[in-house]
Every structure is written in structure tokens, then in C-alpha cells.
């Protein structure tokens, strides 16, 4: 089978996806179960389009490793322990103010190659009306010292790395630690998006 098949092009998710992609058993704001191991965190932020306007009804998907740094996937045969109560997938959309949120656990560090590790991060996929292809980016934790040697962050121009950092936000005593991560689709503080 040496034939190379042409990949199917992407098209926009459009404005009418929610009844299908966010039906009750497909929406995933809360990634954790009571038994899930790890530090509970809340991720929240705005998604903004050009001109600083809130981008509403943007679909956000997340994919992350568990607290030990293991992805719940056959391709991850690393030494870290699998947590059967944690899949690591989130799916939601921004509301009328352009806000989204997830409740999850802070992921552990995952390997980059045999020698290097990647700093804890959450992989994000962004789709919306007006996006003909999805955008991919990563959320890193601003208070994580491993960021300074993360091999993927090192590929990002230094002055733009801050767009990938989620910052601890003030919380009331009853709420779990919250990280703020705004995503700017277009503009001077545009979030770094990846190509791979």
C-alpha cells in the first residue's frame, strides 16, 4: 500500500453544531470523578476575536494527561500510572460573554523524548463559525518552573510565550484553585497557535 491518499480538507464547524456536539452526553465541562487522583483546578477565560470582542459559541476541546503524566491512550506506554477514572477529554463552548470553563486536575509532566520532559500542559482545539480549520494551542501554568525548559515553549518566539500561560486567579475560600486563560483569536496579543 504505497498509495498516498489525499487528506480530506477541513470546513468550518458553523453556527449550528451545539445540539449535536454538545448534547447531554457529549458536553464535558467537568473532567473529574470523585475518585480521580490529583489537584482539582478550574480553568476559565474569555475567547476574543479581532477588535477585542467576545467570541460567542466557540467550541473548545481539551486533551490532557492525568496527574501522574500519563495519557489515557494506547500510544502512551510510559511508566506513569493510568488513572481509570480520568479520560482527559473536555468539550464545551463559550457563552454569550465569550467565557468558557472546565473543571479538571492539573496534569503531570509528560515525556518529550527519551531524555527530556515537557512541562505540564493542556492541549486545546478551537472551532467556530469563521474558522475554516481548527486552531490548536496549549495551556501552560504560569507558576510552573518547568516551563523554562519546555522544548515546545522554546520553539515559540520569546515575546509571545506569555500568551500560552494560564495565571492563578483570586478565588473565594469555597472554590477550587482557578487558572485564567484567555484566548485571543486575532489582534496584538494574539494567542500562539500551532502547526504540526
Amino acid at each position, binding site marked *: 500500500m504505497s498509495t498516498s491518499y489525499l*487528506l480530506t*480538507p477541513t470546513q468550518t464547524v458553523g453556527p449550528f453544531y451545539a*445540539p449535536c456536539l454538545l*448534547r447531554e452526553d457529549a458536553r464535558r465541562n467537568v473532567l473529574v470523578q470523585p475518585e480521580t487522583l490529583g489537584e482539582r483546578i478550574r480553568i476559565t477565560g474569555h475567547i476574543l*476575536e479581532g477588535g477585542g470582542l467576545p467570541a460567542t459559541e466557540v467550541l473548545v476541546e481539551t486533551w490532557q494527561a492525568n496527574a501522574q503524566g500519563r495519557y489515557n491512550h494506547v500510544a502512551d506506554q510510559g511508566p506513569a500510572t493510568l488513572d481509570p477514572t480520568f479520560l482527559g477529554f473536555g468539550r464545551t463552548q463559550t457563552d454569550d460573554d465569550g467565557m468558557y470553563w472546565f473543571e479538571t486536575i492539573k496534569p503531570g509532566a509528560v515525556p518529550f523524548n527519551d531524555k527530556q520532559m515537557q512541562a505540564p500542559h493542556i492541549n486545546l482545539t478551537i472551532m467556530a463559525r469563521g474558522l475554516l480549520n481548527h486552531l490548536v494551542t496549549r495551556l501552560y501554568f504560569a507558576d510552573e518552573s518547568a516551563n523554562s525548559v519546555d522544548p515546545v515553549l522554546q520553539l515559540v518566539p520569546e515575546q509571545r510565550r506569555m500568551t500560552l500561560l494560564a495565571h492563578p486567579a483570586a478565588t473565594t475560600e469555597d472554590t477550587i484553585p482557578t487558572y485564567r486563560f484567555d484566548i485571543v483569536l486575532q489582534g496584538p496579543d494574539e494567542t500562539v497557535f500551532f502547526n*504540526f
Partner: protein
Amino acid sequence: MNHITIGEIVRGDREIFPPYLYEAYQSTRRRAPLLPLVDVPLTISELTGPGPIISAITPEDADLTRNAGTGGEAIGQRIIVTGRVLDEHGTPIPQTLVEVWQANAAGRYLHRQDQWPGPLDPHFLGMGRCLTNEAGVYRFLTIRPGAYPWKNHPNAWRPAHIHFSLLGPASISRLVTQMYFPGDPLHSLDPVMQSVPTATARQRLISSYDHTITEPEWALGYRWDIVVRGESSTPFETSVAGK
């Protein structure tokens, strides 16, 4: 669609994938990133992915003509839409979650923001899902969607299409796209479809009428194969604006 600006920023092969900025499609103007994408290698984060996230899929989920649960049947030309999900080497990909949504036969979506005066069909939700089988095959029974108007430009109509979302073996396999029907005169007028840069790649979005799928006294058959990056993918050469 004269004098349109087409952006340089593309994720993936620029002979296949649409640019983020395609001015003829108005909504891209404020949502397309304008700074270069950053090329990154494939790591464990990209070579893993959520897979089939929904455990409770039933055969009824793939029958859009009856899954509204009203006991009635959707109005329209009954069609079967089927095909294989393949990787770039032609290997079938089983266990891929395929989620679809579409307008009804009159071109109306069941969505609060679709308010044009096309009639709703009480027996049609316009959404379905299934998993590909061991041969990589998905199959839906539905009705042929109608074209519908949108406000992108004067007298703008989207060609009939079905939205597809695929969660395959890894994050690099993620695909959201639209399937079109053969011979539709609206194709050449549609900026969403025309944003795909080459005729060869646009052709990949158009299903084929297939009489071997058509069932007598029942439904017309359409075939549409979908190709996504598989588990054995290697990083492709990219050329990002500015390089």
C-alpha cells in the same frame, strides 16, 4: 467573489486545507489569526487523543429519519450516506466516532439562531452519530438536506451539505468538515467550499451517487470516504507565512 483577500496562514498542507483568512467568507475576517503559526514536532500530546468518547451509542443514533423519538418519520428524500474512514496510506480506521448534523429537507436547522422562514419538521432533529466498524465503515440513514440562505453576501445560499465531526485514533486525526452532494450548481458560488484551495481537494468534499448503495423501494445511496492522519503519521513539511 471578486477581489477577495486570501490569507497566507494555513494549518497543514496548503494544497488541501483552507486558509484561516478567506475574506469572501465574512466571519473569517475577525477570527483568522494574523500572526504566523508555530511549527512544533509531534509529541505524545499530539499522538494520543480521546478516541470514541461516548460509550452509549445505539444503532438508532445513526437513523436521523427516526431518532427524534416522536414515533414519526422525517419528511424528505430518504438517503443512505456511507463510506470508509481511512488514513493517508488507505488503511481503514475502526472505532472512529462520527458525529453529523444537518438542515432538514427544507433547509432549516433546529437551532434557536436559525430563524429564516423555512418550515421545521417535528420529526427531524438533524443530528446523528455512529462508530466506524472493523472495516472503517460508517453509515447513516437520513434525508437529503435542503440548501439554505445565509447573510454572508446578497442572495447567499449554502449548497446542501452534512456536517461531519470525527474523533479518530489521535489528536492529529481530528477532523471537522462538510460533505456536499454531486452536481450542485451552488458549489461554485459558496465561499466556504471555495476556500479549499484546489479543485482536487474540493472534489474530496463531494460525495458520489452510488447505485450499489441505493436500496430498492427505500433510499438513494451516497458514498463518501474520509481520509484523516493516522497513528503512523510523520510530521509533514510545512510552509508558514514568513518563512
